[in-house]
């Protein structure tokens, strides 16, 4: 039963690629947003907080539609990317990564922010009095101490990206080999007669991937907590 066809293998690899890039590109932005929300008070903070969390409460199809308008070749962002960099995201795997990143963003920011909240600002102040500037302080004190939340945020975002369906199909459609990720492949196989077997196989793969990500994060966090004292 577990001989995967080329098309199935393609969908799995595409999903991993989309999820990887979705997380990789959104991580720095996510960390910056989480830090702003955790440490700073500024006018418009609740607006930023709202925008970050919007994908969590909006129907994914609506997010996909908004992305379509923004990133379409005539949209404000899509037009800019096409004219300046020659990049088209709509109907490509890059677009699928954008959709996945947006949908996973609130989960990522939330996990990192909660972790940053637990880092004592007093430690950061101590680092400053020892001669460390804000950037060194962030990378040597704040971020290492927030590592468990960072890992959680990455895993949640990765898993959410693997499972993204609504925004993806609305924004970049369902093109085999280009935008047909795992959930889209499962959905498509259910549309054809006798496709259930394929759907179930891919569903099992999804479960395995999700589990692997969770276990990997657990191991990472545990290793961090029991680091040998050298």
């Amino acid at each position, binding site marked *: 039963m577990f001989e995967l066809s080329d098309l199935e293998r393609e969908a799995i690899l595409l999903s991993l690629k989309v999820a990887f890039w979705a997380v990789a590109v959104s991580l720095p932005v996510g960390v910056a947003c989480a830090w702003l929300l955790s440490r700073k008070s500024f006018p418009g903070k609740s607006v930023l907080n709202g925008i970050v969390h919007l994908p969590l409460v909006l129907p994914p199809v609506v997010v996909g539609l908004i992305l379509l308008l923004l990133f379409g070749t005539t949209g404000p962002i899509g037009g800019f990317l096409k004219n300046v960099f020659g990049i088209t995201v709509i109907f490509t795997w890059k677009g699928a990564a954008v959709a996945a990143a947006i949908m996973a963003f609130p989960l990522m920011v939330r996990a990192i922010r909660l972790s940053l909240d637990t880092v004592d600002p*007093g430690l950061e102040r101590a680092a*400053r009095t020892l001669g460390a500037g804000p950037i060194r302080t962030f990378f040597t004190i704040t971020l290492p101490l927030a590592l468990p939340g960072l890992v959680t945020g990455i895993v949640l975002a990765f898993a959410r990206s693997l499972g993204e369906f609504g925004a993806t199909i609305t924004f970049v459609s369902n093109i085999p080999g280009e935008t047909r990720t795992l959930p889209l492949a499962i959905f498509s196989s259910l549309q054809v007669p006798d496709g259930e077997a394929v759907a179930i196989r891919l569903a099992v793969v999804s479960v395995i991937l999700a589990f692997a990500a969770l276990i990997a994060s657990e191991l990472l966090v545990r290793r961090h907590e029991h680091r040998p004292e050298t």
Partner: protein
Amino acid sequence: MLSVQLEKEYPQFAIRADFNADAGSISALFGRSGAGKTSIVDMIAGLTRPDAGKIEIGGDVLFDAAAGINLPPEKRRVGYVFQNSRLFPHMNVRRNLLYGASAAAGADFRQIAHLLDLEPLMNRSPVKLSGGEQQRVAIGRALLSQPRLLLMDEPLAGIDVQRRNEILPFLDRLRAEVDLTMLYVSHEIEEVIRLADNMILVSDGTIAASGAVEDIMSRLDLKPLTGRYESGAVLATTYEAYDAEFGLGHLAFDGGTLRVAGLEMDHGVPVRAHIRARDVSLALSRPAQSSILNVFDGRIVEVTDEPGPQVDVLVDIGAPIIARVTRKSAHDLALKPGQPVFTLIKAVAIDKRSLGGQGRTGR
């Protein structure tokens, strides 16, 4: 020299502080909790921005509101030992110590590690250290960042009383061996007398008085701020001799020789003796056949006029000393300024905790 002028308004509180500290001296910021001591040192460290004022160390301006200068904390070279050590939990002791140290600090590292007895702790996690050990590491870490001013914000406050006596000797060593300007925040008068040269009295965000510890402690008007129960004058003395037969240390001061129980040290060492007012009694004639060893003749300078059952009497015995007597005794003996009296101090009342400033030459 450290020169500080600060102003800051908080919603229900204001800081207006103006004081100086000599280079290489230890000054204690002394006052009740909530008086504004920590706010003041936070501003000196650059962790809080004052509304107005100027902070200078040895001619370098750290902050000047008028000139728009506000160095960030990492550029101030001001070391800070916080009340709750604030060691980095994800680094071992060695990495904590080296966090602010420059690459060339190898010799300093060994010296400071030795001074604070940190060698056995190097590879341990700060989370697993006792409060006293944590503060020793925190002090070492601050020293290794090569500060030109060291701020210590009640470094013993989070440590239980028994453990305090384990760390105090290290602070004594620090004051004797490290030539560094220090500001020591405390609300424990014994710590101040033991460690500090100068006292800066902080009350309601302002500086009520500042000066040498001996001068501040002998002022009756400052008693509400220096603490009622433990209050008493501080005598600057020099260790003279040890009476081995009876185990008595002889301390010379301008009014004679003070004998204290069980103190043995080298001739010529300066010692500061805190003589609690409640351990001093007064007599109009020299007592004959009394157990009290220390009897000095003096003259009353001031008698407080208080409604309670006790009054404080400031007596000049060559140095100012304060006696606390009942109002009845003061009435019966008709104590008044100008009157000659004999001042009696029990030698056993002066214990190790009342003696400080050992090992530092006069400043």
